């Protein structure tokens, strides 16, 4: 009877003291009989400190507090007990003040001796413990998730899972922490996603008491005070000799150079972080393959994380092709198998929340993309997923300001400034058009019309028009309708996918859109026009660079046209152009560009 079919395991238990001569230890348990037989088997004496069941967060809070004070004084059991009683009272009073926990128990009672032995304890088989140990290694999971992980591997433990986990925790092999914990001052924080700002105090029907819950990581399973998280760090495996030393790829000179630098970074192991700063469409993923192979070779597990699910789907076959199908596990929110273990894990950043000190190398793709950009939970998760001395490689065309500043000091930035076809990046043309008016979108400036006709007549190219707000899409699309087959498309559009498909198949000439299509879109012949490019809340430097990066990605049309049209020329517009120029200059100087394509 170990399987509560649905619902979550709610930890409610006790705080106890064990001692052997002058060795005092404190523990918390949901099943005192279990700990009693564990410790008495090792010659310890056992005493419950609080008979009233505590919720996990409270028990853990007291345990931490008491353990601190226990380190000061170790004399007779009676004296220790007296000290602890005082500490418990103080701790509970503090909790009551800090959290309003009103049901906090206040009595210090020892249960009658012998009653502990009566509880049913089913000792799990060593093989079963080994399975659990192996499955949990490098992960931080709820009991229910571990259950699912074991089931996925076809394992059905006989003993109650929480009991086996308690035994592993007692022997120090895993750690048990409350999903929402309390810091020494009694303030709550979420151990699952790391946030401490907005936890809600609710009355919990599962444990019958007040509980803190975290709504930030809710979509990954409810984190609350009475729910345990089990964590076990993963170690380095033995050297993996089966790994091909270098997946054979034809790299361009620019890529070869960058790949060698990344490989050297992984091999040196002296620095933790490295940024691969690539031009849009330069093929940064392939460049990381060499570094991944180097890490795998020395026995590290590698995580390739990206914020976007589509990237996982698209990249999985490529990685499997390069490293062998058995070596790669791909997972995202919708995947059915979430717990397979492989040397190389390809996952969305959300899935990183279930890993604990496991990866020797984390490759983080598109750190600046939604939802990673604004989500501290994902940063926390990715950081926790790597080993204490694990390395991290950021891959992006548009790194955040802070990261660049930090890594520039350390000298760990690798540039990949040229595209595979060897033509320079199209530089944007900046224009100020007074006629632009957000309230009158139908007054399209002559510049926009000129751009469309140039694209149609001269370049025979399709045009993507970017606007800063969803509300503008329809108005601008209507205003441009005179210049051919035009459609507007935004995130909320129910026909979004159909319109995109039509644009891809060249049935549409012009597509008006928001920053929705800022990345991940590669089309043959395309020009880009940004209207209201001066709206800096939307069109910051990185967004503009990404947008300009849609153009000239293929060999058949490597030039392309990019116009930024604003009511004025904003600093971001100038900075974006400067950044693109910088990359072209660097590429030209290093000799990555075709001769004659760029004037120094």
């Amino acid at each position, binding site marked *: 009877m170990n399987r*509560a079919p*649905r*619902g*979550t395991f*709610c930890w409610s238990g006790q705080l106890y003291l064990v001692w052997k001569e002058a060795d005092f230890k404190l523990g918390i348990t949901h099943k005192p009989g279990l700990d009693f037989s564990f410790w008495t088997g090792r010659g310890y004496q056992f005493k419950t400190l609080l008979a009233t069941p505590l919720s996990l967060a409270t028990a853990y809070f007291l345990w931490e507090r008491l353990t601190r004070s226990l380190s000061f004084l170790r004399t007779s059991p009676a004296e220790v007990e007296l000290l602890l009683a005082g500490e418990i009272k103080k701790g509970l009073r503090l909790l009551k003040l800090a959290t309003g926990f009103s049901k906090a128990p206040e009595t210090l009672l020892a249960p009658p001796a012998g009653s502990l032995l009566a509880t049913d304890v089913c000792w799990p088989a060593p093989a079963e413990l080994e399975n659990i140990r192996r499955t949990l290694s490098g992960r931080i999971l709820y009991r229910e998730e571990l259950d699912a992980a074991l089931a996925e591997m076809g394992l059905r433990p006989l003993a109650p899972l929480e009991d086996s986990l308690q035994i592993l925790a007692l022997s120090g092999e895993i750690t048990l922490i409350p999903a929402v914990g309390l810091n020494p001052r009694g303030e709550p924080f979420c151990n699952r996603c790391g946030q401490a700002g907005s936890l*809600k105090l*609710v*009355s*919990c*029907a*599962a*444990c019958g008491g007040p*509980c803190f*819950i975290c*709504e930030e990581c*809710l*979509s*990954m399973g*409810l984190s*609350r005070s009475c729910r345990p998280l089990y964590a076990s760090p993963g170690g380095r495996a033995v050297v993996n000799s089966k790994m091909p030393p270098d997946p054979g790829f034809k790299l361009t000179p620019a890529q070869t150079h960058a790949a060698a630098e990344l490989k050297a970074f992984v091999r040196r192991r002296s620095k933790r972080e490295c940024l691969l700063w690539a031009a849009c469409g330069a093929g940064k993923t392939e460049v990381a393959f060499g570094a991944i192979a180097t890490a795998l070779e020395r026995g590290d597990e590698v995580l390739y994380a990206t*914020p976007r*699910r589509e990237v996982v789907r698209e990249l999985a076959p490529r990685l499997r092709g390069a490293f062998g199908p058995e070596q790669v596990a791909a997972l*995202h*929110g*919708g995947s059915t198998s979430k717990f397979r273990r492989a040397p190389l894990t390809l996952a*969305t*950043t*959300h*899935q990183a929340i279930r890993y604990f000190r496991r990866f020797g190398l984390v490759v983080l793709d598109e750190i600046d993309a939604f*939802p990673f950009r604004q989500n501290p939970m994902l940063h926390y998760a990715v950081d926790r997923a790597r080993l204490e001395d694990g390395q991290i490689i950021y891959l992006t065309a548009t790194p955040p300001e802070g990261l660049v500043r930090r890594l520039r000091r350390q000298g760990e930035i690798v540039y990949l400034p040229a595209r595979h076809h060897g033509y320079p990046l199209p530089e944007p043309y900046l224009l100020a058009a007074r006629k632009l008016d957000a309230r009158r979108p139908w007054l399209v400036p002559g510049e926009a019309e000129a751009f469309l006709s140039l694209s149609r007549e001269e370049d025979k190219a399709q045009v993507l028009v970017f606007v800063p707000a969803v509300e503008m899409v329809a108005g601008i699309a209507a205003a441009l309708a005179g210049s051919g087959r035009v459609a507007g498309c935004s995130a*909320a559009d129910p026909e979004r996918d159909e319109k995109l498909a039509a644009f891809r198949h060249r049935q549409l000439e012009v597509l008006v859109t928001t920053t929705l299509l800022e990345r991940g879109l590669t089309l043959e012949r395309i020009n880009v026009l940004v209207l209201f490019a001066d709206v800096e809340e939307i069109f910051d430097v990185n967004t503009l660079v990404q947008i300009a990066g849609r153009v000239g990605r293929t060999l058949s049309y490597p030039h392309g046209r990019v116009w930024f049209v604003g009511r004025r020329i904003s600093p971001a517009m100038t900075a974006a152009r400067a950044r693109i120029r910088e990359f072209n200059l660097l590429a030209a100087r290093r000799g990555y560009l075709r001769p004659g394509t760029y004037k120094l």
Partner: protein
Amino acid sequence: MLFKLLAPRRQICPFCARPTGGQTLCASCRALLADWKKKYAPCPRCGRLKAVGDRTRRGDPAAGNGRICPQCREESPPFRLARAAGPYLGVLKEAIQDFKYNGRRSLAGPLGKLMAEVLVHEKSFGRPEVLIPVPLAPARLQERAFNQAELLAGSLGAVLGLKVQGDVLSRVWETPPQVGLTRRERLANLRGAFRVLKPVVIRGRGVLLVDDVLTTGATASECARVLLAAGAREVSVITVATGIIEENFRAALIAAGEDSTWPKPVSEPG
């Protein structure tokens, strides 16, 4: 700390996280919610919605002047009337599922406010005296860690200034999934599932029963029957969302796989 006080968090829409400009919901979610009134008219009794444009439409649909639905005509429900803030579709359905199955409890506030608006606008509710949430069976409560109806009743009560009586009605057992059953079969399944623990509280008084979704009205009917038998003067029902009456509502329910008591797997982001 001081910064927090001086710069309060920008209010964002609980449904879609866009800025609200001081309102409970953002403009586009409000527009989406107001939109149904043009498309559907409620049955004056059970409040379930029927698409307008067919013969049931008479007068102002939002006021419930449509015709009584076939189900209520066949057998009048024991409650006086039931109303909801909208159909169990789109944004409202997503919000309820996030609230109930994911456990996003902060949604109780805005959803409660939506119900309060319905109560204020619908004159025929009169003045309810006792607020009673539809209970969950103890095992289900333990599993979910909260009763969604009770949280909704709590926030509704806070707006109306009424105390929630969460311990008047209790659920003895949880019925198995009701998907694919007729109303009569559902009612038969539910018979005896509820019990009134404190008849004193409701004797001779007007009761307002609160739940998240009214699908066929079987649960609400059974609760109302038990409450009336225990001496309540009258029972009216308020829910966040309500079902839509189709020509063949049973088939529609099966097709939609909708049942208010059975959790569906919720897929993770990322």
